[in-house]
């Protein structure tokens, strides 16, 4: 296993995404329209919108985040994956690179959706440092589990709905932590228990991904 291969692989994944623009041109606008529709559905109740804003943001990130991991990846495509494996790139390294690139893209999605939420919902802006940490933890967990789920469902017909079905329930602790950190900040409560919970979820997901990478690729079609 050669860990120095992760960086060039991540760079290749990101370059492919910037050329195709799948996340920037479809996922982000779709997610932003989700935020807008939810706000309109709730109606003209500014105090209520302020309260539900962060919850809406993280729900949207969770639901649409799966699409980021479902994008066309360099090492996820069967033929390229076979070439990489034949070249001796460990499946674990390929998985780490895919998960890391998805995490970077998810951070980008969150970075765009946060200002949109602030504009539409006007939530109280307190405890931003803890919330930034929570956002990173959400991106890591969602990126890792989404990549694992995308591998599990590779070349199946229903994968666009299967990946969210597998990812959404298992990443609920992350969303819960992110929302509670925000709510806690309003009332000056400590964010630590929630950040620890999110970190624990992340570590568990990453471990599962590392261990599943080899059995998943062995004899893959």
């Amino acid at each position, binding site marked *: 296993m050669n860990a120095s291969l992760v960086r060039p692989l991540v760079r290749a994944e990101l370059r492919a995404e910037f050329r195709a623009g799948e996340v920037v041109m479809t996922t982000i606008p779709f997610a932003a329209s989700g935020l807008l529709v939810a706000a309109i559905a709730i109606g003209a109740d500014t105090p209520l919108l302020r309260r539900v804003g962060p919850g809406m943001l993280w729900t949207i990130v969770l639901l649409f985040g799966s699409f980021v991991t479902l994008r066309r990846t360099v090492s996820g495509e069967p033929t390229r994956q076979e070439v990489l494996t034949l070249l001796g790139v460990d499946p674990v390294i390929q998985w780490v690179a895919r998960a890391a690139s998805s995490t970077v893209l998810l951070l980008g999605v969150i970075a765009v959706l946060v200002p949109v939420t602030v504009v539409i919902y006007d939530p109280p802006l307190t405890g931003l440092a803890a919330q930034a940490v929570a956002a990173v933890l959400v991106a890591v967990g969602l990126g890792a589990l989404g990549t694992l789920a995308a591998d599990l469902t590779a070349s*199946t017909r*229903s994968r666009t709905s*299967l990946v969210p*079905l*597998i990812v*959404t329930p298992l990443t609920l602790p992350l969303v819960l932590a992110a929302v509670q950190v925000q709510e806690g900040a309003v009332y000056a409560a400590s964010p630590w228990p929630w950040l620890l919970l999110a970190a624990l979820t992340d570590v568990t997901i990453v471990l599962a991904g590392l261990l*599943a990478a080899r*059995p998943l690729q062995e004899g893959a*079609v």
Partner: protein
Amino acid sequence: MTTSKRHLVIDVAAVSLVLAGFAGALLAPTDRLQGDLQRLMYVHVPSAWLAYLSFAVTLVASVAWLRTRRDRWDELAVSSVEVGVFFTALTLTTGSLWGKPVWGVWWTWDPRLVTTALLFLVYLGYLGLRRGIVDPDVRARRSAILGIIAFVQIPIVHMSVVWWRTLHQPPTVLKPGQPSMDPGMLGVLLLNVVAFTVTYAALVRRRVEIARAEAAVEDALLSDDSPLAGDAVTAPTHVEVLDV
């Protein structure tokens, strides 16, 4: 005994035990606070137990498949998930029916309730995943991996009422020390647990048979000696003229 006779024995045992458990549930003493509502426990608790049991069987079968690559482990894993998903749904339904009159709500933000609902959804995802993959070997491998990962939730579901302060009461029977329950009620509950477990075994056996039959159909469809749909049509004569 032939296989079908053994099946008959287990089916009859399951039906009669369930009937006995039902009678016991009606005859058991009435709870001091909840009255007859508490009788829902005789369905709710065994269903929850079966959810744990079936997903644990899936875990073991998934590990066994990854080690041995024998088809029967994969058949057992999927059969157990299907039965488990049904009983998880039954747990959620009876819990909801019990919660409305006793707690005052059908559903509430409570760790035990939420984790159980997530369990249900993830194993539905497992079944969805299997439907999406055609190749039996790839299907078995991927679902074995998901069957192992998904089991992480089970200890969280069971311990949620102990770790967190929740609305759902802590365990009555599966805890250190004496069960905090009337012996008569406990007896009926255990009878129902046994009845449900035998029912589980009967259902899984039937489902494994179906899985075998499905695999046989798949094999037959994939093998070359089966007639093609086009064979029924006689080739047009001009092909012979062209001498292809």
